[in-house]
């Protein structure tokens, strides 16, 4: 049996559990396949493939902070046909329309399996929609959707025909919510009634009862009838809303923040509010990014929260959905200089292949995209050693992904970028309003290298702002593609033709159709399941160059978006796995041996490999 570089436990003070085996040394880098792309990296084929979504996010002048945040995008299977369909959230022409109506609906697009899309009937919502989250809410085997918004939060269940319909009485606004927390466009509204503004939302089974729960990131108090203009406060103590000397929209600083919420799933698409003791240290903060992941590798889903201009949070779960924030002690609340940055989006992956999850957090301009590598205790800042400081500090980045796009066994970093202030295009700001998406290689040299677009049609070429982004194999070739929810313009679909010689494997995990009976259960969509893939190394590969790949089933992360539930493994030149180990949230482990690359496999808890097909 080959030796697996066992997952060392990420020690978070007060939340750790002993790991039976000592941490393995990080193996030397295996020879990496160069990114070999066509002439253009991620050519944008949204238009020719029918992904005709066009975002509206307020006025071009961006008079209020709501208009700057744009939309999200979700990838999910809407027809149980095995391919990924796309849903976008949508905003309005201006803030006043959020009150007067008509409101916006979501924009679903159905995939024909080859990556060609057709607009589908929308679910009939009315609002200003922001974040999206995916998962099977009612255990029927179909992907469902949570839509968050400015004064809106809806659970949408998928019917047998692939349509999403809002669930009535979903319990997403508690009975004691203040008047006006829900904003219904066109409905009468009183002054000083503040909508609950949900940004990023994420589904995971936090209490391990086999039912998905919901973490709702919330932003700030913006009165749609009296938004601040030009300054906050009055008289001599007013603070002008300026950035680098230019007058800009007000916020978030100086505006009241809203607290995040935790909702526990009932298994039928409805939710109930978690008790206050379950997020005991929750204080209002400007939440923008939410990523569930198993930070301490103890089998439950923890949560990393990126806050705008406030310390980020690392909620460590005790397995019963009771959380304690360890971000400060773990070194991921602030930047290395002790400053709270404007956290926007979050990505999670094992960047350095040491068996620990690492974090990437996107930030404002003049603040780099931060890379935090899991360490024996907490995390260590690797941003500057990787050279990310210089590469990213002029960017304002949102959606973010750590994904092995080229299949060489090392993840790359992709960010969706774009400034919030149109005034960024004025003289001497050091940045621009429209910004191209960026792709960086991170390994094996532990130094970033920016990938050039290679041509004008590349997703990385046009200097257009984007906000939400999601990753998944949309054209069925086994390589993860990218969807960008650009702001105030057409969406982009970057088709991945990187690493065409690389070997890849895609895995979809399913929890049992019938609920288990143990104290811990796996949800039907298997959120939180861990995967460890060990390639079948030929004898010529020295043991020191062997590696294992770590993955987790989570669709949340990035910014206001939900990516594919399929876990992608890039195997480089290796043709098959020695084994794939699955650690289910129920506590069971399964090991599947001999999986071959070039396959898309489905594994169900207790049943093992249930389907396998070639790309």
């Amino acid at each position, binding site marked *: 049996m080959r030796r697996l570089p066992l997952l060392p436990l990420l020690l978070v003070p007060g939340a750790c559990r002993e790991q039976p085996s000592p941490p393995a040394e990080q193996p030397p880098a295996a020879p990496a396949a160069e990114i070999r792309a066509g002439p253009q990296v991620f050519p944008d084929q949204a238009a020719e493939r029918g992904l005709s979504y066009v975002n509206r996010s307020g006025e071009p002048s961006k008079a209020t902070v709501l208009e700057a945040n744009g939309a999200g995008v979700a990838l999910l299977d809407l027809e149980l046909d095995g391919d990924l369909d796309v849903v976008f959230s949508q905003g309005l022409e201006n803030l006043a329309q959020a009150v007067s109506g008509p409101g916006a609906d979501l924009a679903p697009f159905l995939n024909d399996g080859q990556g060609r899309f057709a607009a589908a009937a929308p679910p009939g919502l009315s609002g200003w929609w922001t974040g999206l989250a995916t998962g099977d809410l009612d255990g029927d085997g179909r992907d469902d959707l949570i839509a968050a918004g400015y004064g809106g939060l809806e659970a949408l269940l998928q019917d047998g025909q692939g349509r999403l319909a809002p669930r009535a009485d979903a319990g997403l606004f508690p009975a004691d919510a203040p008047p006006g927390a829900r904003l219904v466009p066109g409905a009468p509204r009183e002054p000083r009634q503040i909508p609950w503004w949900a940004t990023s939302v994420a589904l995971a089974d936090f209490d391990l009862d086999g039912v998905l729960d919901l973490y709702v990131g919330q932003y700030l108090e913006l009165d749609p009838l009296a938004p601040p203009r030009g300054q906050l406060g009055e008289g001599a103590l*007013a603070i002008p809303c300026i950035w*680098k000397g230019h007058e800009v929209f007000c916020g978030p600083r100086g505006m009241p923040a809203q607290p995040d919420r935790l909702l526990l799933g009932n298994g039928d698409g409805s939710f109930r509010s978690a008790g206050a003791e379950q997020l005991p240290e929750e204080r209002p903060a400007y939440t923008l990014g939410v990523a569930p992941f198993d930070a301490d590798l103890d089998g439950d889903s923890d949560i990393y929260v990126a806050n705008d201009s406030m310390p980020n949070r690392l909620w460590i779960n005790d397995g019963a959905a009771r959380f304690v924030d360890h971000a400060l*002690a773990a070194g991921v609340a602030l930047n290395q200089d*002790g400053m709270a940055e404007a956290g926007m989006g979050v990505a999670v992956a094992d960047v350095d292949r040491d068996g620990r999850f690492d974090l990437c957090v996107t930030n404002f301009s003049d603040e780099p995209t931060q890379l935090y590598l899991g360490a024996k*205790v907490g995390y260590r800042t690797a941003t500057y050693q990787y050279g990310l*400081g210089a*590469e990213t*500090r002029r960017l304002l980045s949102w959606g973010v992904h750590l994904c092995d796009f080229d299949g060489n066994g090392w993840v790359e970093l992709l960010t969706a970028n774009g400034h919030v202030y149109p005034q960024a295009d004025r003289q001497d700001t050091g940045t621009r309003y429209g910004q191209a998406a960026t792709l960086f290689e991170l390994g094996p040299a532990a130094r970033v290298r920016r990938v050039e677009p290679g041509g004008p049609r590349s997703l990385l070429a046009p200097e257009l702002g984007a906000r939400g982004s999601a990753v998944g194999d949309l054209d069925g070739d086994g390589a993860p593609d990218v969807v960008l929810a650009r702001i105030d313009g057409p969406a982009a679909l970057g088709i991945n033709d990187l690493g065409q010689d690389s070997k890849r494997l895609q895995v979809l995990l399913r929890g049992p159709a019938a609920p288990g009976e143990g104290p811990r259960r796996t949800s039907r969509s298997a959120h939180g399941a861990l995967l460890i893939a060990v390639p079948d190394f030929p004898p010529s590969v020295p043991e020191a160059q062997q590696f294992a790949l770590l993955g987790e089933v989570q669709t949340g992360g990035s910014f206001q978006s939900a990516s594919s539930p399929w876990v992608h493994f890039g195997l480089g030149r290796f043709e098959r796995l020695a084994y794939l180990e699955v650690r289910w949230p129920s506590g069971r482990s399964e090991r599947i041996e001999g999986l071959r690359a070039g396959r898309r496999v489905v594994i169900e808890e207790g049943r093992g490999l249930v389907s396998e097909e070639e790309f």
Partner: protein
Amino acid sequence: MRAIWRHWIGWGLGLGLGWAAPAGALAPLSTGAPGSAGAAAQAAAAPSLAGERAAARSHLAELLALGLLGEALAFGQPLIAAGQPLADDGSLRALVARALASAGRESEALALLEGAALPEPERVPLTLERARILIDQDRLEEARALLQRPGGSGLPALYPEEPDCWFLLARVHARQGRLDASALLAKRFLQLAPLDGQAASAWHLIAQEALSRGDAEAAAKALERHRFLEEWHGLFRARRLQAFRAPEAALPRLGLGLLWMRVERFAEAEAEFLAALERDAQLESACFQLGEARRLRGDSDGALAAYDRGVALAPQDLELRSNRGLLRLSLGQAEGAADLEFVVAQEASARPAFAPVFLGLARHLAASAPQRAAELYARYRDLGGREPLEPAAGGPPPEDG
């Protein structure tokens, strides 16, 4: 924010940070502005030019600290143009370079720093600014070479008298993963500039090193200091911006004074309260705070003058009457008792904050009217006071408050 005898519980929130900065330390709202390296050259200059230099540096640093980038460039660039009297000022040149770098014009900034033919003392701020830009560019080894003394012995900082040199070196080491060295350098920086704008960051570096050693207690202490300074500088920046935008308004200056009080910088606080009163002579709360700042500096006469002015504006103000009375009694002026009698007669004084008034008056009357003193002392105890009626010999005035 008001307090009665707050002196005895301390303005520094018990953090023991040693706020009193050494002479010549950096300005509190640091901009990390280039420090004293050009002092010799400056001193040698004609008095009028020296004043012009100081004023220009201060204004440019403030514009940068307030984020007014365009205004900073418009102000600073002409000053250092060839042939101008201040063109040889290294500190000004460094500040202009910082503004250029913030504007995304780093190559221009580096050219400005590297191309100047200035005498050695004026070159130090240029070198430090260059290092700052190199750090931002992740050129950490190059930055370290600019900041660190060659060789392995003695002080590591090439310019040990410059706090910025220590801080930047600490930042380089932290970014390269050497938290132990970073913490040592940060501590030295804090000795030199405990209230600098980068002091919060220095404490955070120290906390990170403690966390890496698993020393949770030391980390918690350092993080507490970090949090305090971070909040203080945030508030300070906001007040400075308000004062800059509304220079004739009194309230921002009052707010600035209160912030100085929090860090026990009473001289600076006094200056701000006076500035507030220049703008609004009827601002009785500024009179109270001015009295406090002077009292805590040891200027009892000045404090009494400020309280008198406040009482004239607001005769019913309990805090003013309380502190004036207590101060007078502590100076042996028996007429202070009248103020305290006025206070204890008011219903509003039945709060723990006024406990020292009851104790002070009880002590004053202990010999002449023991029954009345006992009643007042009982009320003092009811309000939570715990000191004995008889003061310890040579002891301080009442410490509750």
